[in-house]
């Protein structure tokens, strides 16, 4: 039996189960085959009318209907499908009893339009409709399920109930870095010795009118609607924004010791996590790139690895003019001349930006990259941006020797998080 502790004397944290849902499909097999085939999951939106909107496409998951047409209902469904797959693969615990805590990356839960509509139509035409009028209808028990549904902790509640996780579940939001943050919380809990296992889930359902409008008003979205599959083009000169997308990813984390003791198959190692907040602006990165640089260096230090030891970077690569430029600045500062040689690809070219789920979804793709020794491409790379001389693994997947992969996530509110995964314990 090898060493169970890492370079800093902490328990080594491994992954023993993974589950994923994106616009490409449900499950690792379908996602991986389509991702490495360079397929796009971006399509014209059919879930609601898009007249009058600047952006009319998304990476929607339309093959998993929810009971109600409501963002948290969809998000919960995606999370459940991904978690079923991950828990089954790991074989951990017993049905309905996961032996560790839940860390859930999830978008803020909000009361949505169908619910407000229902109240408004109940009030009817003859009275002015405002929040006072709606408030009068809310009590008395008729809508008590709405309270349960729209609490911020409601999604975690449902998962904790079904999978029987232990203790107080944590719902985390670090915007587009949430997925990494959920995994980081799990890693830290295992390293502290509080638990031998953690269930880390990330989910997002954003394909609804108000979410689309919100990002649209911030000029964050691509408006290249003509051929949806071509809209997300990270690192290209003609990139113009990200494509809103849905997804979920679940990882079962365990200490190497616990996984070994129960004979579980180790799918990969979470070698290190790093984070650093940016105080420059609510939506833009500090122009000097220091927070991103510091974040990447923190992840390397946490993993005990030198930049030379990273042989693949799964980029945040959103396809916004700002992000891709700043990500290049950050990576090229840390990796120096190697920044031009090391493969850096963006899954978002195919699946769009799954927001709260992105960090976990892309961690799973990074772990699959390590497993299959095959790097998924950055598609739609027809017009390179000369200011970003990355090897983006253009348009076609590539076989390569990958021993350590870094995945980056950056979000509104100055959120930066990076994670390093390896195939084998160091």
């Amino acid at each position, binding site marked *: 039996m090898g060493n169970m502790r890492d370079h*800093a004397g902490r328990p080594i944290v491994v992954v023993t189960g993974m589950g994923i849902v994106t616009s490409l499909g449900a499950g690792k097999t379908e996602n991986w085959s389509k991702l490495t085939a360079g397929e796009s999951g971006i399509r014209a939106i059919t879930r609601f009318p898009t007249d009058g909107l600047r952006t009319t496409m998304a990476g929607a998951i339309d093959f998993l209907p929810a009971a109600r047409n409501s963002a948290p209902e969809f998000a919960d469904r995606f999370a459940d499908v991904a978690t079923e797959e991950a828990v089954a693969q790991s074989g951990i615990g017993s049905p309905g009893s996961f032996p560790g805590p839940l860390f859930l990356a999830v978008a803020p839960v909000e009361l949505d339009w169908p619910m407000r509509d229902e109240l*408004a139509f109940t009030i009817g035409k003859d009275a002015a409709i405002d929040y006072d009028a709606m*408030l009068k209808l809310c009590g008395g028990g008729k809508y008590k399920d709405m309270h349960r549904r*729209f*609490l911020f902790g409601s999604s975690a509640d449902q998962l904790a109930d079904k999978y029987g996780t232990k203790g107080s579940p944590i719902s985390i939001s670090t915007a587009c870095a949430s997925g990494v943050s959920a995994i980081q919380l799990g890693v830290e809990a295992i390293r502290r010795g509080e638990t031998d296992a953690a269930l880390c889930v990330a989910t997002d359902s954003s394909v609804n009118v108000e979410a689309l*409008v919100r990002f649209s008003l911030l000029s964050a979205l691509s408006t290249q609607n003509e051929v949806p599959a071509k809209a997300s083009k990270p690192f290209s000169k003609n990139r113009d924004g990200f494509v809103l997308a849905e997804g979920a990813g679940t990882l079962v984390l365990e200490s190497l010791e616990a996984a070994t003791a129960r004979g579980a198959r180790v799918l990969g190692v979470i070698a290190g996590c790093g984070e650093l907040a940016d105080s420059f602006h*609510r939506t833009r990165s500090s122009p000097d790139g220091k927070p991103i640089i510091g974040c990447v260096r923190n992840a390397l230090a946490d993993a005990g690895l030198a930049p030379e030891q990273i042989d693949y970077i799964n980029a945040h690569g959103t396809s916004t003019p700002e992000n891709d430029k700043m990500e290049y600045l950050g990576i090229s500062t840390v990796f120096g001349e190697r920044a031009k040689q090391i493969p850096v690809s963006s899954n978002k070219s195919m699946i769009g930006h799954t927001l709260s789920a992105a960090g976990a979804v892309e961690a799973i793709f990074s772990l699959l990259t390590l497993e299959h020794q095959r790097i998924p491409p950055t598609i739609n790379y027809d017009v390179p941006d000369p200011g970003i001389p990355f090897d983006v693994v253009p348009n076609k997947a590539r076989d390569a020797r990958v021993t350590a992969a870094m995945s980056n996530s950056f979000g509104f509110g100055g959120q930066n998080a990076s994670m390093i995964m390896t195939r084998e314990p160091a």
Partner: protein
Amino acid sequence: MPSSRKSEAWITGIGIVSSLGEGLDAHWDALQKGTINVDEKTFAPYVVHPLIPVNFDQQIPKKGDQRQMEAWQRIGTYAAGLALDTAGIKGKTDILGRTDMIVAAGGGERDLAVDSGILNAKVQGNAAPNFLNERLMSDLRPTLFLAQLSNLLAGNISIVHGVTGSSRTFMGEEAAGIDAVRIALARIASGQSDIALVGAAHNGERKDMLMLYEFGDFNLKEKFSPVWSRGPSGGFALGSGGVFLVIESKEHAVARGAKPYAKLSHVSADRAARKTQGATTETLESLWKASGARDDVAIITGATGAEPVTAEERQFLEKHKALPVRATGTRFGHAMEAQFPLGVALAALALSRGGLFPPADPSGFEIAMTAAPTQIVVVGTGHWRGEGIALVEAVN
């Protein structure tokens, strides 16, 4: 080895702004006098504890920053600034640059006029299929989203105060506040972090949030009464306020010459299966047993007044009948995510002042305490889910 290091964690900064005032002296004074600031009219029939008038310029000097925030973010950013002031680290960029931040947040203050306008038009039959799209595109303020996003309270604290070591936002009502303090302590105790800014903010003067809780009949209506006197059809009066704590390892505090208000010795949390009667009582009792509380402690609880959970918590408290209890809900209202950090803040304040504040409870459930407490247990029981207990101790 970092994983085996066990550090003592000190509370070295406390920022509070609420319906009772701002800062530690004002709060201590109000608690001594038994002041309660409640508004039964503005949101009638709902009772709320309104924020005192605050000059936000004092902690958020740029008007541009204030304009980018909704009330809950301004309250929190303000309270965070107070906490940094009391800890003596305001403006100390070297420390702030490695200060870890955990914020417990709700979010989403809506534009009520925009919502109402859209709903009226829909009901009047003036809504084409693309109506919602067009109205949202034209009526929503482009930056409103940023004032709604849960993690943007932390984001604003980074921008205004320069706290950038890390930034994590927990969601999930009361439990998020408990877990924020719990994780901060666990990270510091294990050496994963040296210093953290932890807290939450809540704007209780919001019709959209009243609506969410009204679905479950949780709002206190018509007339204020203390938490312990609300009876079986009780509820909570939402309270506005922001509470932030600076928590750091003893070594870190000593090295920079910082004085502690108190020691944060223990925080644990759980999620009782509340469908089973008695489960909350049992969960609180087992958290209590693990806390290291002696039998002469005082208890500060965030009991909401909502039922049936307050009755279950009361059964737990009655097992420790001899102990003086103080309900923050009576004095501050229910500040949701901020209620547990508030309890920890008041515990640290009381320990640092060498006395517990007097009862505010005509029912007699809260008893007087004349001795100076050396341990205070903070109890958090969510109105719908989540239980937590902290042990705060005096530093000799």
